[in-house]
């Protein structure tokens, strides 16, 4: 009859925790800057906690059979953002007020991680509020407990500035999204990040956001995605160093595909179009430089890429796409000269017509005036 006893203990501990949480909420700490609260006379000091919790390889067997690691590296904690910010053990572990203390009421490791999010919210309310609509939060609320909670990305005991160095971000996301992270690391963006620590390439959060991470499978996100790409790829300052064309968005929008995209994005963002977005030809996390032999859009691979949507396309077909070149005598000359022709033909025809119409109207007005005088 172990379990009922444990549950009873858990319920008592949980109730105590909730009570304390409520009390600390009434203290209303919104910002991560802590108010200097006078410690209760019998409050535990960090040193008292660490006396036990620095011992190596301590674990707590949770009812699920998983082991919760209880050992804290005191020095690493002191060097962490929380340690430097004088956040004490019982600020977060507010249910623990004296020794000996009850074990955690949580039944498994996921519950421990998820439940502590409520504790994070006490100081980091802005980030917690942003997270409310995120795909992680929504997925968890839908019943998938694997979705990330605060402590999955930010180890509370050893937390360091999350974006220093920037490659830390890809590693953090990669802990759960390892397949995607692997693709990303092989991409033109990821290689530049890991090899050169290039500040110009995007990391996960540049496209997906930080706490407000939206579901990237929705039509809203997909239809917004060309703007995400364009955010950097139309920026001359950023692209000129690499000799990358910044006309990519204009030329895409000028084409049938991009024209359709702008309309869908503006008018029916909840409806997907079968016209390709940047990612459909270039790839997403695995995106390659257009000069890379493995790029999906390099000439020798382009037909295969077109055939994803145009299964019966043949060899000449890819040239129907102007490859992000504005028509000029050098690139897409036929289109250029058609435009030149109409650039002359339209004003030529309309000019002659206009000249005649004006002369005819003038003559009629003249005749009428003359008649009126007589």
């Amino acid at each position, binding site marked *: 009859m172990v379990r009922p006893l444990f549950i009873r203990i858990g319920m008592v501990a949980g109730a105590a925790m909730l009570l304390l949480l409520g009390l600390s909420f009434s203290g209303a700490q919104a910002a991560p800057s802590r108010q200097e609260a006078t410690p209760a006379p019998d409050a535990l000091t960090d040193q008292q906690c660490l006396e036990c919790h620095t011992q190596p*390889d301590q674990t707590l067997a949770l009812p699920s059979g998983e082991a919760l690691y209880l050992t804290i590296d005191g020095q690493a904690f002191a060097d962490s953002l929380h340690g430097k910010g004088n956040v004490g053990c019982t600020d977060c572990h507010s249910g623990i007020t004296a*020794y000996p203390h009850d074990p955690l009421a949580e039944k498994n490791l996921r519950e421990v991680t998820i439940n502590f999010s409520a504790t994070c919210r006490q100081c980091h309310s802005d980030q917690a509020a942003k997270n409310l609509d995120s795909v992680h939060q929504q997925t968890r609320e839908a019943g998938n407990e694997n979705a990330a909670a605060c402590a999955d990305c930010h*180890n509370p005991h050893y937390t360091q500035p999350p974006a220093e160095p920037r490659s830390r971000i890809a590693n953090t996301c990669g802990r759960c999204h390892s397949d995607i992270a692997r693709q990303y690391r092989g991409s033109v963006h990821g290689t530049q990040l890991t090899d050169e620590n290039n500040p110009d390439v995007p990391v996960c959060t540049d496209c997906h956001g930080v706490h407000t991470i939206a579901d990237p499978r929705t039509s809203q996100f997909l239809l917004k995605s060309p703007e995400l790409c364009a955010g950097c790829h139309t920026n001359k300052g950023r692209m000129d160093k690499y000799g990358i064309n910044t006309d990519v968005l204009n030329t895409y929008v000028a084409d049938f595909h991009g024209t359709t995209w702008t309309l869908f994005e503006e008018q029916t963002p909840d409806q997907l179009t*079968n016209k390709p977005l940047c990612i459909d030809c270039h790839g997403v996390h695995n995106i390659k430089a257009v000069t890379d032999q493995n790029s999906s859009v390099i000439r020798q691979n382009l037909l295969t890429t077109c055939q994803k949507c145009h299964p019966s*396309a043949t060899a000449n077909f890819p040239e129907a796409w102007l490859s992000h070149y504005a028509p000029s005598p050098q690139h897409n000359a036929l289109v250029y000269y058609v435009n030149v022709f109409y650039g002359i033909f339209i004003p030529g025809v309309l000019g002659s017509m206009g000249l005649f119409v004006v002369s005819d109207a003038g003559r009629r007005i003249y005749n009428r005036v003359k008649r009126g005088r007589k």
Partner: protein
Amino acid sequence: MSASVYQRFSLDQRAEHALTLVTFVVLAATGLPQKYVAANWADTMIRLMGGIEITRLIHHFAAVLLMLEVVYHIVSMGYRLFVRRVRFTMLPGLSDVSDAVSAFLFNLGLRKAPPQGGRYTFVEKAEYWAFVWGAVVMVITGFMMWNPIATAQLLPGQYIPAAKAAHGGEAVLAVLAIILWHLYHVHLREFNKSMFTGTMSEREMIEEHPLELADIKAGMAQPVVLPLEIKKRRQAYFPVAGVLAAVLLVGVYRFVTFEKTAIDTVQRVSNVSAYAPLTPTPLPTPRPSPTPSQAQLLPVWDGNIGLLLGQKCGDCHGVIAGLDFSSYAQAMKGGTNGPVILPGNPDGSLIVEKQSKKHPGQLSDAELSVLKAWIAAGAPEK
């Protein structure tokens, strides 16, 4: 009154005009917003029409209607020209050029009199043949855009965007020419209603088509035809017209159904799984430690009680209360409050007392009873 009214357009010609008018306006209204998609007015119009896909559908539908009208026009013109032997008054000639020049010079006051118009003046011929030119360009370029894969099988791929450029350029030209030329000559200069009423007054005829009026009055406007000859020519023309119409209609049908250009739904789900946690997790994980199986827990210290207490109590004790369960000797020595294990006296042992209440590192009921049995048996080491 009736004597001074002249038939100008037959009912079917007026119906053709009405159909052309409607489809042209619809094509312009659905096509130009696609060309000028960035403009606010274009966005509003496409919204009002129910989105770009519906706008394109309407554009295609109107295009098919107009193509069918062109087919009808070709067949009926054939009938007029070959069966009824109507004079091909729409045929342009050098006289039209000289008419245009002299009309212009007259307007400038450099000629005494304006040119005399026949059944179709140079103004009307210019518009008709401009429309023919426009229709040819629009049908060819429209086909290329509607069937880009088929086009690229015969021509370089670049013909497709070139067709789009030409289609757009031609559309702008057509709409502006209609506004400038047609609107001025037929509506502004004088509202010419003959395309709706089918008739013209004598005054209008004198003004616009004096040469035709003269021909009518002289009975020379149209050739005299005998009913019998018409019957014979009909018999010859109808099979030809039937074949021609069939070929053209099949052409229109193929135009619409030639190819399925693209798939309807693009797969955008990544080929990699979104959730793929790293194993082993980079978070600290405990090293595996031997856990005595409860089923085999024996009342001896070595490999049994010693392991159990080491695991359940050792996390804290070793520091707290001076207690240490890391060895038999240390365990029997006890802590700052004296010994916790009294061999032979389980109920008097502090460890049993503590474990019978709530304590961190709680032993299970089964473990506790083995512990008690071990103490009762004198707490043997081996």
